[in-house]
């Protein structure tokens, strides 16, 4: 493991211009053993993400976004095609990638604090206890949960739970952040504040982010590119580059003409896909 890492660093220099995350003709689906059928969720998706890029994904509900991010995370194996991260095919989850789950996936028997600590404690080389505590404190503050360190998930509101999941993913500063609708359950204001924080953090750390969202505004605000996925079976409809300067959160960019244009474009792309989640038979 350690050996492999050293190698990665070495090669990273040569491969700086290579895509960091790359999907090649990926098809994914789920088998239904009851009636011996297979539902194809994503069909023939090819996509490159550069190192340090912020890739936003939007698309109709059920189009395979979670499936796609799960493949990058290593939970789901593609039926066809291949996904590589930093040149290595993904065979399972790795500590280089952290995930914010759509359903939060908090451990109900752990307090907020210990849920966040979970992200660090399993590593072979982990930060010192004091360092961990400090990082946890910061992460909790970041997501606005100070005072709830010792609360259990069932004692939190929906949005608060979601924020624990975010803190857990951010606390280790992984090189890839996989975020599946991370701000879906928080209110508009908290969402903005957290978007700003996220932008700040990744500007500092240079993390690569794959970010699923239902909010077109959010996609355009945060993304370097926005992938628009079509209805199931999901295909890439278009990849929209967002050529707006950063930082975007503190400025008036969201009131700008260009922002509105991009937003309109994505909107129209999606228009034809809405409520298209009917099960197609091929």
């Amino acid at each position: 493991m350690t050996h492999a890492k050293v190698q990665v660093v070495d090669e990273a220099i040569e491969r700086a211009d290579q895509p960091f995350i790359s999907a090649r003709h990926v098809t994914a689906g789920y088998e239904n053993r009851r009636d011996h059928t297979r539902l194809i969720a994503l069909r023939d998706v090819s996509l490159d993400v550069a190192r340090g890029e912020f890739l936003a994904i939007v698309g109709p509900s059920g189009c395979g976004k979670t499936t796609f991010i799960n493949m990058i995370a290593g939970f789901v194996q593609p039926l066809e095609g291949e996904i590589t991260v930093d040149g290595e095919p993904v065979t399972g989850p790795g500590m280089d990638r952290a995930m914010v789950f759509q359903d939060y996936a908090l451990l109900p028997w752990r307090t907020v604090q210990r849920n966040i600590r979970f992200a660090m404690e399993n590593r072979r080389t982990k930060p010192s206890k004091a360092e961990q505590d400090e990082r946890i404190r910061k992460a909790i503050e970041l997501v606005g949960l100070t005072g709830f360190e010792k609360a259990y998930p069932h004692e939190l509101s929906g949005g608060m739970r979601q924020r624990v999941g975010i803190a857990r993913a951010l606390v280790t500063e992984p090189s890839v952040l996989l975020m599946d609708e991370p701000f879906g359950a928080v209110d508009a204001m908290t969402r903005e504040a957290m978007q700003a924080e996220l932008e700040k953090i990744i500007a500092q750390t240079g993390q690569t982010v794959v970010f699923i969202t239902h909010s077109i505004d959010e996609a355009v605000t945060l993304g370097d590119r926005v992938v628009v996925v079509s209805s199931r079976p999901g295909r890439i409809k278009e990849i929209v580059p967002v050529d707006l300067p950063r930082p975007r959160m503190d400025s008036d960019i969201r009131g700008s003409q260009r922002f509105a244009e991009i937003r309109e474009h994505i909107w129209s792309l999606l228009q034809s896909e809405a409520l298209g989640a009917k099960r197609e038979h091929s």
Partner: protein
Amino acid sequence: MIEQIKVSRFAPFRNTAITLVNLGVFFVLWELVARAEVINPLFFPRITDTFDAMYNGFATGVIWPQLSHSLQNFLIGMLISAAIGIPVGLLMGSNKVADVILSPYVWAMTSLPRVAFIPLLILIMGFGNAMQLTIIVLSAVFPIMVNCMAGVKTVDPSLLRAGRAFGANRIQMYGKIILPFTLPFVISGVNQGIARGLVGMLIGELLGGGGEGLGFLLDRAGEQFDAPMLYATLILLAVMSVGLVQGMRWLERRAAPWRESPAR
């Protein structure tokens, strides 16, 4: 998009194949150990002799009447146990007062040896099938109860709310929310009940006056130092138990296809 997938026609037999190889190896090892006489043959017969005894037992009609007596009693006993144990267990799990009041007796009854109750039972019920059934029920009902009780505490409160929100009354809550949620506990409890009920059945047959059943067969084989026959009976018991348990697991899978997620 839905595709038809082909499942290898042999896939369902994989487990059967593993099981066959597994048991094959086990029996061969048994035979080898027995032949080496590492353990005295009086207590550890060859498996070939054991199967021989079983075959002869069936062929000469020695086993079947006993087996059928036991099986019939046992199944009736288990049905009664489930019918009592599951509702009472669920009630104890969801009602704090019922729990506090019944728990001591239930746990005492779960852990006291059944043999200790036989004289009392015979006294009250006399000899005969009712008494044997009672022992089976007394053996099986408590494991079912305590597992159901433990299960209820795990039910997701969200689902209880959903149940109440959509007008489920008390009985519907048990039937439609609590029971399905606790199913794995219930099944595991029933399986534990099967295991203990079998022992109860043997005790009942041994001490209960009928001179019938596998328990009687077992005792007589022991008395006569007929090790092959003794082991043959034990194997029959094991088959009975494993068969019933597998049946329960199959039932569970049928009743809960939603648990078969591809993640596992």
